[in-house]
């Protein structure tokens, strides 16, 4: 349809007016120390009024050189360092690292050890998601759910303390097993916790899931398409919220996850709201898995007998038996003898797929250990995701991605 001269003129005036109003772009730094950034992430942004036109994430403020340290540590010595990667789910990191080394050494762990590991992994997932959801609610302006989720998380930490002796930095696994067996009566406490958790989750859901303000702030915000999510290597709940059915517990089962019956929640739109829904459902599925593990808890040893020969002989025998004494001496001076080779293992951690790429040239220390941190990969999409949103959406987008800088910067 052709336009009259007058219409075109009016259009021109409107266009000129809007360019006049646009004015200069403003540069804004968020972080590295800002409540929104959940740690030390820095976003360098270019703003046009309230609209973000460009965003460059800057990471590395928490870099400690974990990979360099790993090259100078015997295998078991590195376990405490894995706590400090995703420090909201240290147990899951411990397990992922232990499995990687076991795969290279060819160790099979007994059923009881695997059951304990599944149990602690799922508890770590619940604890991490509880924090993720609570903080996400707080980022969107809802303070109360945070109190509910933190109350539950506190109960979990009490259980972790009873199991590992530490609330936060657990260092629970050893190569070829776990540090100690579960304490007496601990399983029933876990079961009791699982029985009352759904009530708390329901309360959080009542406060958030149909909350008009929460919906307005999260629906249609920070949409990650299926294609983008795969192209940028996003994993975990963030990937599943975008509608990609990838859960390593189902697709490449480890620790005997194939025995347990659970569903993998998938999002449809890939926005911030979907990421929240996926996490809520994953907590429910984790409860389901924990109950199944407890119902079929196997007896036996919690460590592989072979692992003791390679990594550490039993403590009580070192001082009484000649063979174990010699073994202990060799392991301490030479380090455990791990065969040369390379292996890559990914575990489905709460934040995404935590991968360890281990290269050994024989001897007591890894030649190279690369840590594939899910938060690092998940944050790389920010440059593409953020522009086009309002400044106030930043808090919601970052909250919904649920990242940990300790893991991102390593």
């Amino acid at each position, binding site marked *: 349809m052709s336009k009259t001269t007058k219409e075109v003129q009016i259009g021109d005036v409107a266009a000129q007016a809007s360019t006049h109003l646009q004015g200069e772009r403003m540069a804004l730094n968020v972080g590295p120390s800002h409540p929104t950034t959940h740690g030390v992430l820095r976003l360098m942004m270019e703003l046009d009024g309230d609209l973000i036109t460009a965003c460059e994430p800057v990471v590395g403020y928490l870099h400690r050189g974990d990979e360099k340290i790993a090259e100078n540590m015997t295998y078991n010595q590195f376990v405490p360092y894995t706590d400090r990667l995703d420090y909201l789910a240290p147990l899951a990191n411990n397990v992922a690292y232990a499995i990687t080394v076991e795969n290279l050494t060819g160790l099979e762990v007994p059923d009881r050890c695997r059951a304990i590991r599944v149990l602690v992994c799922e508890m770590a997932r619940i604890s991490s998601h509880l924090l993720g959801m609570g903080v996400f609610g707080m980022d969107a302006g809802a303070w109360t759910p945070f109190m509910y989720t933190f109350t539950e998380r506190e109960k979990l930490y009490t259980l972790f303390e009873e199991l590992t002796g530490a609330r936060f930095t657990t260092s629970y696994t050893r190569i070829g097993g776990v540090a100690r067996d579960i304490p007496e009566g601990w399983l029933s406490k876990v079961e009791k916790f699982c029985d009352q958790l759904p009530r708390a989750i329901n309360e959080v859901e009542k406060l958030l899931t149909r909350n008009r303000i929460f919906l307005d702030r999260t629906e249609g915000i920070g949409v990650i398409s299926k294609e983008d999510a*795969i192209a940028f*290597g996003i994993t975990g709940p963030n990937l599943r919220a975008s509608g990609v059915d990838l859960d390593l517990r189902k697709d490449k089962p480890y620790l005997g996850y194939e025995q347990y019956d659970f569903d993998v929640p998938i999002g449809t739109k890939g926005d911030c709201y979907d990421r929240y829904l996926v996490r809520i459902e994953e907590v429910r599925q984790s409860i389901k898995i924990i109950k199944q593990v407890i119902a079929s808890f196997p007896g036996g040893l919690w460590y592989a007998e072979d692992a003791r020969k390679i990594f550490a002989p039993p403590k009580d025998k070192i001082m009484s038996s000649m063979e174990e004494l010699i073994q202990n001496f060799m392991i301490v001076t030479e380090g455990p003898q791990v065969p040369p080779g390379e292996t890559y293992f990914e575990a489905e951690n709460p934040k995404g*797929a935590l991968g360890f790429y281990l290269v050994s040239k024989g*001897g007591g220390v890894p030649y190279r250990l690369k840590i594939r941190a899910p938060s690092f990969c998940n944050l*790389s999409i920010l440059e593409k995701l953020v522009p086009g949103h309002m400044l106030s959406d930043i808090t919601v987008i970052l909250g919904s991605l649920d990242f940990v800088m300790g893991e991102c910067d390593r």
Partner: protein
Amino acid sequence: MIDDCFVKSLLEEHPFLELKHQEDCLTLLCPSEDIIAFCTNLRDERTFDLLVDLTAIDHGEKSQDRFSVVSHFYSLIHKDYLRVHYFCSDTENPEVPSLSEVFPAANWHEREVFDMFGISFTNHPNLKRILMWDDYPYFPLRKDFPLAGIEVPLPAPDVSEVTQAGVEAAPMMGGPFVSSSGGRMSQTEPRAKDESWTEGSTKPL
């Protein structure tokens, strides 16, 4: 899972590939000049569209090809991983083609490799340091870089001008027990190493 049929057709289509035996997943050695074409084929024809990891290995100063890059791909259809090694041509100025055109996920991974190993990636859109600060002069994950670190100027020149402070090497004296691979037993056993003598005196011999 990847079956023999897949491997066979892959090797037939790309005769330059070399198969390496590894227990955990299919491992291939690819010449670095063919890597872009091969990875594009992996993504478009072979369903390996998720680049999960990209990193490098320093094989030591004495080895002929010092640096190699390792990528891991995952296929949602095969539900399996695939590993590709490719070597950097030059030891002094190591360089390989960048995968970030094909896989946007490679962008940050390659920046990290550049930061830690000093390998440059040709045609990378934004090749600069990611974990260390921009002016940092060393490549920390190279084997010749000491664990304790090396003293360098502060990242903020205006602050260091006033305070005369620098970034010091980590105090290793009596510090964490570390081991090293290879060599005599007396050198490899875990012990506190005094790579840096930071107590106001020079390192005793």
